[in-house]
């Protein structure tokens, strides 16, 4: 039924702490996470055997086009998915426990408190009938037994931290009275209110103006440094990812097709899709004064996938690409890629 999963198949892409040179255990250890929508036969797989680790204080980027499963992954980490979505298999190791096995009540303890989420669209992510202050206070008091006044004071502190002027006044405002950038800052304030270990930012700047984007990015970097949080940054913009992330995982059709340090991804992209992404960046092609888009659309696959997901759009495709599903194989230290034309070792049982 499920894809056969052997750790060997993913090789050392799922690198252990030792290999990446840091002795302590990772904060987040995701293994073979697979999420599908719909019933078995007609299931559509949104996230396919995704594995990665995240160290304390590190930033991991999840980069890919719309519909490739990045947000689904993020929502799964917090167990926020609803039917018809379901987790088919996998493990989410966080602080010694598997989040997929926790009860709803335990997950409520984690959400907002240890892992928080920053959403994509600040226009719709705030309840229009409550003030900003009420919503921040709600986030705080969900996990701390403190009085209203104290919570409000903390909220004012947070407003300053995220750079919203006139904190106390702004707290009493309703969401629609704030600009998009300010709303996003308020959402960030809610996300860091309880100093979580991990913040997942799902395209936090996509819905904002370019000028505001830079400010928000700066804010997030600053907060990360100050509070020592880890971050998963989801975006479709490789440049943005490179500026803020330590490592980047490139996702295509629900699978990680390449994962490496940010410098590597930009400077030495390996997977044809990554190369396409890098080539399509305006700065890269500026020299040639042409934009190089990748032709075609991102697909969605069902339960069984017996070929490379990128084959339909790949410029380097060969016959073998359609006959076997490539495994994620290492390509040197801290760099793994899913392409049969790149892997150092041929996998023995790479099929299916």
């Amino acid at each position, binding site marked *: 039924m499920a894809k056969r999963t052997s750790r060997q198949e993913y090789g050392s892409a799922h690198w252990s702490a030792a290999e990446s040179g840091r002795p302590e255990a990772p904060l987040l250890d995701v293994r073979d996470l697979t999420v599908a929508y*719909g019933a078995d036969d*007609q299931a559509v797989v949104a996230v396919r055997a995704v594995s990665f680790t995240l160290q304390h204080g590190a930033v991991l980027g999840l980069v890919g086009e719309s*519909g490739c499963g990045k947000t689904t992954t993020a929502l799964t980490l917090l167990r926020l998915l609803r039917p018809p979505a379901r987790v088919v298999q996998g493990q989410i190791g966080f602080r010694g426990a598997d989040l997929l096995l926790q009860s709803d009540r335990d997950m409520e303890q984690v959400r907002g408190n240890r892992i928080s989420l920053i959403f994509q669209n600040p226009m719709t992510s705030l309840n229009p009938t409550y003030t900003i202050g009420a919503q921040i206070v709600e986030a705080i008091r969900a996990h701390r037994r403190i009085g209203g006044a104290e919570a409000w004071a903390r909220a004012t502190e947070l407003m300053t931290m995220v750079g919203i002027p006139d904190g106390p006044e702004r707290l009493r405002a309703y969401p629609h009275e704030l600009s998009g950038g300010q709303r996003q800052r308020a959402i960030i304030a809610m996300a860091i209110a309880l100093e979580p270990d991990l913040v997942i930012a799902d395209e936090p700047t996509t819905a904002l103006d370019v000028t505001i984007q830079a400010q928000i990015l700066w804010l997030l970097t600053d907060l990360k440094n100050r509070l020592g949080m880890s971050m998963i940054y989801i975006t479709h913009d490789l440049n943005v990812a490179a500026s803020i992330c330590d490592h980047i995982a490139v996702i295509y059709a629900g699978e990680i097709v390449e994962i490496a340090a940010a410098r590597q991804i930009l400077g030495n992209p390996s997977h044809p899709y990554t190369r396409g992404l890098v080539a399509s960046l305006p700065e890269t092609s500026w020299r040639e004064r042409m934009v190089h888009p990748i032709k*075609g659309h991102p697909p969605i696959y*069902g339960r*069984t996938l017996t070929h490379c997901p990128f084959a*339909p759009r790949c410029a380097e495709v060969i016959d073998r690409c359609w006959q076997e599903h490539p495994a994620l194989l290492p390509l040197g230290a801290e760099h793994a890629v899913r392409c049969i034309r790149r892997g150092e070792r041929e996998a023995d049982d790479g099929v299916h």
Partner: protein
Amino acid sequence: MTLRGEDTNGPEAAPAMALAEGPLFTDDSLPIRPTRSGLARALTTLRRWPSFTMGLAVVVLIVLAAAGAPLISPYDPNVPNFAQVLQGPSWQHLFGTDDLGRDMLTRVIYGARYSLGISGTAVGLATLIGIPLGLFAGYVGGVFDAVVGRVSDALFAFPAVLMAIAIAAMLGPSARSAVIALALIAIPEFSRVARGAMLVEREGTYVEVSRTLGSSWAFIIFRAILPNALGPLLVLISLGFANIVLNEAALTFLGLGAQPPVPEWGAMLSVARRYIVSAPYFALFPGLAICLLVFAFNLVGDGVRDLMDPRQRRRS
């Protein structure tokens, strides 16, 4: 290979999933599924929505029963039989008898004629007047729309029953004044829904194309837009019919519609009220008949609505 195009169900069974990001695309190189014929799709639909089919069947049955009333009724609906007044259900009289000894089953069947007839006429009037009015108001906008809107609001502000009383006072209580009252109550609602549907369709590209080609507004509204707006309008007519049947029964019950000795369900209930203590069965069957007809129309209306709305699939 398994790509989305190989889903075994037809287009109408597209999984109702809500991936957070963007639309879903299939691979360009795969062949497109051939569409099934319209009839095949219609039959599949009927099979998949048993409640809708059932509702439609009941409505058809009642219409047939009403049409063939003389053929299937055991007795004459108007001839009294003072020997058997206010009897309960028995093998002779399945639904019992009324205060004049007339067979209730017969009268209930004949009653379908009145209910369907009066309500049907009112629905017809509302459809023929209200819908074009709303479509036109939505299409043209401006002063016409504003005026129609204001008058509609004023009519809406009138509780229906009081309007019926007023009309019945003017014209005398009869089936005719009931029809007028019911139509007047329904027309604002019909025109409002039609207007809404028009506002949605008006922005379609095909409208612009028609306009550029120089078609007249009548053509655009009735030949181009109406078929596309058919969905909500069909829902409106079915549910409207249900409502109007209920209202009609209520009006007759209050004495504002068809007068006794007509075998109309509401009228029968109005008489039955007096005998509720001594002969409770008298009130049971006409009421059940009303429930059945209204229920059937509601099923049909809901079924059509579910058909039209891709989000409301029962099986996902």
